[in-house]
């Protein structure tokens, strides 16, 4: 479904990766690990159109994603969350799904299960970090993605929260969605993902 073909990217003269190849199939749940500066976030940025690769091809099905703007890619169903939580300080959580109300009501069960229901009428500054992270994941899910990139979704979670969260993902993320979880900690991906990839400096993508 999503395919990277010999993609290369460098930043200010520092090579982040070169000749990166992989294929993400429909419904595949992949955990992506790797050291710092190996370009995990850059990979997401390229796949979602926020950055342009220096070389190579990025295809979604038959469509080339190169040259498409981030919003066009998002409309094609490639969604993401952000490592630094991006929520508006001036809106209560309920107003931050940015979907019609009907959709919120349809998915009420999911919202309830995520444990953020009690916080829906609060501002982000009144909620603990794990809630905000869940909120971001929920927001992405409500936008019915076909591919979902989660950048460090469990950062700041305690062990119990992590288990709960993995259970939540397994129950509520439709199996037709391809999921890519980028993390330093491997616990979440071990619980959730069927496949895991490793990204290391100056090496091709390692499938583990």
């Amino acid at each position, binding site marked *: 479904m999503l395919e990277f073909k010999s993609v290369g990217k460098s*930043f*200010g*003269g*520092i090579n982040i990766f070169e000749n990166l190849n992989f294929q993400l199939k429909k419904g595949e749940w992949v955990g992506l690990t*790797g*050291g*710092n*500066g*190996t370009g995990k976030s850059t990979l997401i940025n390229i796949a979602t159109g926020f950055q342009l690769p220096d070389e190579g091809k990025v295809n979604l099905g038959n469509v080339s994603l190169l040259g498409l703007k981030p919003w066009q890619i998002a409309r094609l169903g490639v969604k993401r969350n952000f490592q630094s939580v991006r929520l508006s300080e001036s809106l209560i959580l309920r107003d931050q799904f940015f979907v019609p109300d009907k959709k919120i009501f349809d998915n009420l069960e999911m919202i309830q299960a995520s444990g953020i229901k009690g916080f829906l009428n609060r501002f982000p500054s009144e909620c*603990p*970090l*794990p809630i905000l992270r869940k909120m971001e994941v929920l927001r992405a899910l409500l936008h019915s993605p076909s591919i979902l990139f989660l950048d*460090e979704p469990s*950062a*700041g*979670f*305690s062990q119990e929260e992590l288990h709960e969260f993995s259970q939540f993902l397994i129950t509520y993320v439709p199996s037709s969605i391809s999921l890519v979880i980028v993390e*330093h900690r491997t616990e979440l991906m071990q619980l959730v993902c069927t496949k895991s990839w490793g990204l290391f400096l100056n090496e091709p993508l390692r499938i583990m």
Partner: protein
Amino acid sequence: MLKIENLYVKYGFIQALSNVSILLNKGEIVLLDGHHGAGKSSLLNAIVGLVASRGQVIIGKNIIKNRSPNKTLKLGVSFLPEGNCIFSNLTVKENIELGSVLASIKHSENALDVFPEISHLMNKKAFFLSGGQSRMVAFARSMASNPTYLLLDEPLSGLSKGPQEIIWKKLVELKNNGIGVLITGQHNVQENSEIDHKYIIENGQIDKVF
């Protein structure tokens, strides 16, 4: 020694810390462990005076009143907040030199060589650094202010194995040079034999001491 006695911190109605006492001697590594939101960061922030607190902080024999990061730094307590705390608009070298400027001491060449891993990047803008590299730069900057005590908030979190080991090795080296190091929770260093004491914070209170 750096001694914290009966520290209380309150945010609005929430009691973030109550009656916390901690002792950090020179040449020790002390670990503060606890869940997210248990009050680890609040404790470090309170020590350097970033949040208002009740209680005493004693450096050597002096009780420090009206603490501020500036004041504690000049008394030899260097604090490094969570995350990649670097100035992306400055070069790596300038970032590190900032440490000595902050403490109002002379630049020392040693500080630039704390991590040989980043020595080739000295004249690059810090903007281009990866997470691990920027953590090393921030660490080297803390060292440049020539501290007696180091307070590091989550120094190893978000790092991959390589940089983690490099920084941990440096911490042990500092310990052996007689510097007191206080770091906050990191599950993968818990069992490390180099840690002299471990405090577990739960709901703003010291739960256990090892």
